[in-house]
């Protein structure tokens, strides 16, 4: 119940109700985007964005830049380990 599923917003199905279509494991589903639409923003700007889906709602936008940053950090940690076998850590 607390595990979210990352999914990419494909289309907006109802702009006024802030509903959009995502694809999760090959299945298309309508989800509610209200929590990731800032007031003024139109949901159409979310098409192509990655969101985390919980019980029918997109609860967070996945920040791609932050995801890259974490992966870079992880890779650095890993490389450092491979090179120095931990001597410098």
């Amino acid at each position, binding site marked *: 119940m607390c595990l979210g599923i*990352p999914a990419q917003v494909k289309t907006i199905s109802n702009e006024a109700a802030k509903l959009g279509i995502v694809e999760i494991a090959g299945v298309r589903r309508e989800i*509610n985007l209200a929590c990731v639409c800032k007031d003024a923003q139109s949901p159409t700007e979310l098409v192509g964005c990655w969101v*985390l889906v*919980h019980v*029918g*709602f997109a609860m*967070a936008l996945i920040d791609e830049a*932050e995801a890259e940053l974490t992966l870079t950090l992880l890779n650095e940690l890993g490389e450092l380990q491979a090179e120095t076998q931990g001597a410098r850590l």
Partner: protein
Amino acid sequence: MSTISNTEEGLRYLDEFRDPALARQLLETLHDQCDRLSQQRQKPLQIMEVCGGHTHSIFRYGLHDLLPDSIELVHGPGCPVCVLPKGVIDDCLRIATAPDTILASFGDALRVPGAKKSLLQARAEGADVRVVYSPLDALNLARQHPDKTVVFFALGFETTLPATALALQQARASSVDNFLVYSNHITILATIRAILQSPDMRLDGFLGPGHACMIIGTEVFRFVPERFGIPFVVAGFEPLDILQSITMIVNQHLNRAPALENQYTRVVRDHGNAVALQAITEVFEVRESFEWRGLGAIDQSGLRLRAAYRAFDAEHCFDLGQQKIPDPSHCQCGEVLKGVLKPSQCKLYSNQCTPEQPQGALMVSSEGACAAYYNYGVPRDQCA
């Protein structure tokens, strides 16, 4: 619910955080760090993963077997299904068997054993019980069945709370008058506070609940390092997320600098999700106290509907006693929930209690500690 995905979709943010080669390197780093830490302290670090989602990932990827001996994971009470008191299930059974009533909830909740049976067993006997994926599906059921009362059995932490709140807001805005909610929502914040204040608290760090924090933010947990001196790292759910978060906690110990850190920055922001928080505040208020299975009453840990939503509140429409039904004495769910016993040390584990025939709720949900142990083949602890 699982995060399994075999299509292009989802792969991007799942596979990259599951890279086995990188995981091995991180584990080596962690082993090195722990070697250094062992020069400062003898006792293992006891780290609580608060969220059942973390418990599930830890076992699914076998991390429990790969961690250094000086790291001991304590499974927290963060599976909302597992802490449901039996009395609540019996309340729901009463709702489900009322005339012209449909009871809807998530699949896991419907499999929890009550005093005599689960809600799914009641369905087999003719009660109208429906599995839904979202509270919105329950609201749609109400729209499709105007001649019936649809009761959504709502449960979960801050993660599912906004969904219930938003569904209720929609129901009110569109004047759906045959939709009720039985709120058994609980808050993880109050729970962590209760854990920290319990006299036998001996934790050395928290893997913070990433998806609850996605809603409530990280700042609300600043008191953990500042008042209690215990590291708190908000963690994602993929294996690399968990390994990195443990590394961060060990580092804080090495530097003797307990802090609030956020490993899951791709999803969690300092102040959470404003839209979700606003919906929660508008719809819910805190109960003085709420009874948890195995843990007893925890102050201010439960949420009920505000007076403005009374027309949608199942507690006002049904006579729900909040009756207390103790667990059978041979179940050791309480000890497991408190971290005193490991699931594999419970007398019933894997012989009388299995996911097919659960005796306790911890065996029901895939996020429950007992189900995680069982599904990933942890044998019964013979010496217990």
